[in-house]
């Protein structure tokens, strides 16, 4: 085992070790001070944990690829809200209502296409103008959110369909519908990133864009594809979540971009690009949801979650820096 391998193993294992620490902490402390009689490490509770990780999780998985590219997408929260509005509103259109329950899959398609289209806008601008993705998606975050408010003013957009709710609440082999979507996304994206040319190109571009261009990788179309992918995933997240709750507030999904980025960084993906993994991001998402859930379980103030996550994020970044510095020193010798 080379030192590099050891370092990698340590980095990838860190998030899972952290999850174990959280689990142990909340189980022990929960037993002592929680008002609940149920144990924290209860099978049902852990299944719920996965389900509740889905909305931000699905977005964070897409964000991993964007960040491995060395880009960032701040517009996912607004895309999420806009796709949700299309999902719920389209079911009230007259021709859709005449379709009965067949309107449901059609509404999903509309919502997903909305996400892809919004992602394509981001991708095209990044490709054709060469402006940094941070600025482009900052602008589209504001723009898309503007569209959300134009759609229905300050009012929530609502359509409660019990067939849809029953589907979303269903449990197949013990796992909730949302969990299946989350795990399915993990599997597909993991395959893409580890087994395909597209995945290898993503790392190559993030590592050294110029070298990637010289190697003949078409960076522009590659970015476009990835932005369409994250648009799709933001919409998928909305589809999964709003199938279960038939109403969207115009400010829904705000700050989701930051939670998604937090999960990705917790999972060890580098902000500068070139390094990261889908599985570790799943770990980051679970770690955040576990904190929220656990602090609620032991009766801590909800706002402490933000404080704790902030502190952990800083710790992760310092750790990452230390490891990298050691790596460089070793190279010199």
């Amino acid at each position, binding site marked *: 085992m080379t030192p590099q391998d050891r370092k990698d193993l340590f980095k990838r294992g860190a998030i899972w070790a952290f999850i174990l620490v959280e689990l142990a902490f909340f189980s022990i402390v929960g037993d002592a001070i929680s008002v609940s009689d*149920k144990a924290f490490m209860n099978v049902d509770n852990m299944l719920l944990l996965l*389900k509740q990780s889905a909305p931000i999780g699905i977005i964070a998985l897409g964000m991993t690829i964007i960040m491995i590219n060395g880009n960032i997408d701040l517009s996912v929260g607004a895309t999420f809200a806009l796709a949700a509005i299309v999902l719920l509103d389209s079911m009230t259109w007259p021709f859709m209502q005449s379709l009965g329950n067949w309107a449901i899959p059609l509404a999903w398609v509309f919502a997903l296409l909305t996400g892809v289209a919004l992602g394509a806008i981001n991708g095209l601008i990044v490709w054709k103008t060469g402006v940094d993705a941070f600025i482009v998606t900052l602008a589209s975050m504001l723009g898309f959110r503007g569209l959300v408010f134009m759609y229905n003013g300050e009012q929530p957009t609502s359509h409660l369909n019990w067939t849809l709710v029953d589907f979303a609440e269903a449990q197949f082999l013990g796992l909730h519908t949302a969990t299946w979507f989350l795990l399915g996304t993990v599997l597909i994206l993991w395959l893409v990133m580890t087994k395909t040319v597209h995945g290898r190109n993503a790392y190559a571009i993030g590592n050294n864009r110029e070298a990637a261009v010289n190697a003949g990788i078409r960076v522009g179309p590659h970015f476009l594809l990835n932005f369409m992918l994250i648009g799709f995933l933001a919409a998928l997240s909305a589809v999964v979540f709003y199938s279960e709750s038939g*109403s969207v507030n115009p400010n829904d999904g705000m*700050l989701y971009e930051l939670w998604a980025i937090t999960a990705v960084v917790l999972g060890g993906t580098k902000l500068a690009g070139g390094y990261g993994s889908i599985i570790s991001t799943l770990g980051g998402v679970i770690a955040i949801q576990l904190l929220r859930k656990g602090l*609620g379980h032991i009766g801590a103030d909800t706002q402490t979650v933000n404080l704790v996550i902030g502190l952990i994020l800083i710790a992760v970044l310092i750790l990452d820096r230390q490891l990298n510095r050691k790596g460089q020193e070793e190279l010199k010798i």
Partner: protein
Amino acid sequence: MKMTRKLALACTTAVLGSAAAAETMTIGITQNNVGVDSYQTTYEKAFIAAAEADPNVEVVVLDAGGDVARQIAQMEDLIQQAVDAIIIWPTNGEAVIPAVRKAHQADIPVVVTNSNIAEQGFDFIASFSGPDNITQGSRSAEIMCDKFKDMGIADEARVVQISGQPGYTTAIERAKGFEDRLPEVCPNVTLVETQPGDWNREKSQQVMEAFLVKYDDIDGVYAGDDNMGVGALNAAKAAGREGIIFVGATNFSVGYEAMAEGDYWGSIYQSPVDDAEAALQTAIDVLNGEDVPFLNYFDTPKITQDNMDQFSKPVF
């Protein structure tokens, strides 16, 4: 011997322990967005204080931070923890209905606090605890009518109304309460026109400016809340129109200050402390099997320049 005594001791403590546990009830609350305004912050403090004062009650206090997804997750967590009752301050009156149904299916009674969920969810909740907006509207009408009678203009006064955001239940109910009650107490007062101010002070000021241009004779203004009422007051001040009676609802601190200065006549006092205590009491009553009205309102008294010294200044 020693062993048996120990065992006996353990048994008695166990019995005592379980007896005490049977008495206590665990109530979970998921709030809308604590910290976004001082009404909600005060509400949370009052809720915790009320729960601590009752030795039989344990509470799990959660806050959704305005995020529907988080609120639904919190509902699921409370169901999972098998609390005895759940109090919810909905982030969205429709989005939480499926989560409320889940609690209902798990036989956990749900009390909705402050603002009600949509009617489709009524089958799944035990009670709604909050302000009665229709009564608030009719009380505002009474405040205004009484003042007109004092001034001796009850036979000819003309009133305009600035309502809250269209579509909001609170706005609709307050307007209805006012419009129904005014002709009953002051049949000769005319309501000239109603326009929405969207709960927004600037919007309300513009609406009032338009009213002032349109009508030379305005004796009273009813606003759906004090925030809008103060906006209208500012418009009247800027136009130099005096002697108009302003009545609002949900007494805000700006309204209270304007009343202290003598510019603003009256409002409806809605205390977050009463709101929180009513919600907890409703949940306790439901758990004790008492008959609780489906719409369980707490009292929101009238406040005018005459009796404002009996009320502390609102914190929001």
